């Protein structure tokens, strides 16, 4: 059975890792500005040109990898990455199309590349040397468990032995009439089939045959529920 070995998040309240913070919550509001030095140890030339959605997702991944002690590498490794999102990079889409409307010679090629919402996973792969499968799932449901289900299924079928699953939702565009707006933030969990030792894990995680997600043999109702359960378990709350 796979185990959760790392947790990282960015919420309105700030950035955190499971082992360092005993409190996690996701609330409406304004997300903190993400700076390279607050999430990455080494310089990353692409960071400056990345859109807010990509920085948010990259931050969640970086913090989860660090929490798991898997952020350093020498050779590329098959780590899968799956992220659920409700709105994807819709604000980036709007920003890019503004540059088109201003005049087609103004269309920003750099910004356009980030209108593909999986590109932040590619940036994470470049920085952390992960060459497993990576993709985004557009999920209109706010529970955000689809990425976890997909990753656990891929691990179950031996496509890879470790991976990151998470949710990424930037602040919704204020002027877009959407049916519902997800809470802003990113949260990722690192999952390993064979962790170095039981002491390095938060607990076992499982995709049951009825498609429910079980953490420590208890059903999780949302990604936020899972993160809270992990934090409470680790800090004995």
């Amino acid at each position, binding site marked *: 059975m796979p185990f959760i070995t790392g947790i990282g998040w960015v919420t309105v309240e700030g950035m955190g890792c499971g082992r360092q913070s005993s409190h996690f919550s996701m609330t409406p509001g304004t997300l903190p500005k993400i700076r390279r030095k607050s999430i990455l140890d080494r310089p990353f030339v692409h960071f400056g040109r990345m859109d807010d959605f990509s920085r948010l997702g990259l931050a969640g991944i970086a913090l989860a990898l660090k929490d798991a002690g898997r952020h350093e590498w020498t050779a590329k490794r098959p780590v899968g990455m799956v992220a659920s999102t409700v709105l994807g990079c819709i604000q980036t889409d709007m920003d*890019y199309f503004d540059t088109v409307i201003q005049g087609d010679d103004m269309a920003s090629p750099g910004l356009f590349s980030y209108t593909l919402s999986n590109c932040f996973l*590619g940036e994470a792969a470049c920085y952390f040397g992960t060459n497993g499968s990576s*993709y985004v799932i*557009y999920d209109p449901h706010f529970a955000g468990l689809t990425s976890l289900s997909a990753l656990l299924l891929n691990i179950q079928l031996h496509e890879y032995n470790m991976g990151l699953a998470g949710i990424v939702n930037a602040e919704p565009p204020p002027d877009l009439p959407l049916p519902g707006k997800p809470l802003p933030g990113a949260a990722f969990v690192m999952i390993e089939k064979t962790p170095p030792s039981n002491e390095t894990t938060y607990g076992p995680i499982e995709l049951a045959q009825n498609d429910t997600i079980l953490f420590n043999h208890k059903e999780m109702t949302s990604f936020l529920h899972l993160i809270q359960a992990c934090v409470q378990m680790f800090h004995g709350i």
Partner: protein
Amino acid sequence: MPREINAGRGAVAQRKNAVWITDTAVVSALSDHIDEIWEQLLKAKTAIRPVERFNVDGYRSKVAACIRDLMPTGDRSMLHGLVSRLACAIGPVPSDAALVTATAKAGIDMLEQRKYGRACDAGDILPSSLAHIASQTFGIRDQGITISAACASSVIAVSQACALIHSGRAEVVLVCCADLVTRFVFSGFSALEALSSQPCMPFDKNRSGLSLGEGAAALVLMGRERAQREGLTPLGRVCGWGSASDAYHVTAPDPEGSGLIRAITLALKQAGLKGRDLCAVCAHGTGTIANDAMELKAFAHCFSDPGDSGPRVYSVKGAMGHTLGAAGGIEVALGLKTLEQQMAPPTVGFSQPAQGAERVSAQAVPIQGDYLLTSNSGFGGINAAIVLKRGG
């Protein structure tokens, strides 16, 4: 001739719960019907022509493969029309099917409408809109998920569908993929200097970029036991799949093809096959200098056996343009046709082979064998491959 399948993990899984493809539909700028698309392909026809949908003054390229009579209806995305055409072209889909959709930019035409101050359905702007539209149009209960991995979206969606069936979580999965040609997408690829001024020339030594296209595909995947219960015969079987990242650059492929090599290796391993067992490869073949060179390098690595001339390689993008997130689904459907007809379609636009493109042809070429590999590579440095088998 193909060798006997090794009894690896993949082969065992196939025996337990083989994934059959029992029905397909494709809508592209060539036609709304897969048989007509196939005929047009064999005649080396192209649907890449001057763009009329939006103003292309000022762009280096003025061509794309747009579906001529596809237009937004009222405040709704063109995706509705595209998916409706698919539903007309496919047999009944079981209402208990799980739904996995794939797209790069979904209903981005509605975001454009909004920016121009025109009426638009906000629900269609959501990137998950394709799953909602497909669920309603095909009359299936599952609300589905939408996978987005740029140009590899569909192949990953098919892989995920196979995983659901293999693991016993679903008996039937509908994979539905679609993408549109819009000013948003056209201007972006133009700004990246990725568009060819002429219809694209995959694997040609004079290639200079891609041509955009729009299209959609629907694939019904079913566990063998369920299909047999329903008295269905398979169009083909998915034998293996693999996906990998380059970890090199988000908009440029790894020149060494490391991610594609890994994706192909994983797919072949799961199928219990070697490169020499394949009779054809449906390449991504966009016509960009970097993509095609990377693919040829990866193919040379994966399929070169001393004394073996290797599988036929073709690309359909010179005929119907690069349909982005829909490309893989369309190419799986046409790959099944290739196997059924034992004929590799011509690579339209190809004339003088680039280095390493000796197995590509401008003419339709008879093939002999049961296995075909189809692959896609996309922004984000993602690569995905699938091995198909003729029949069940």
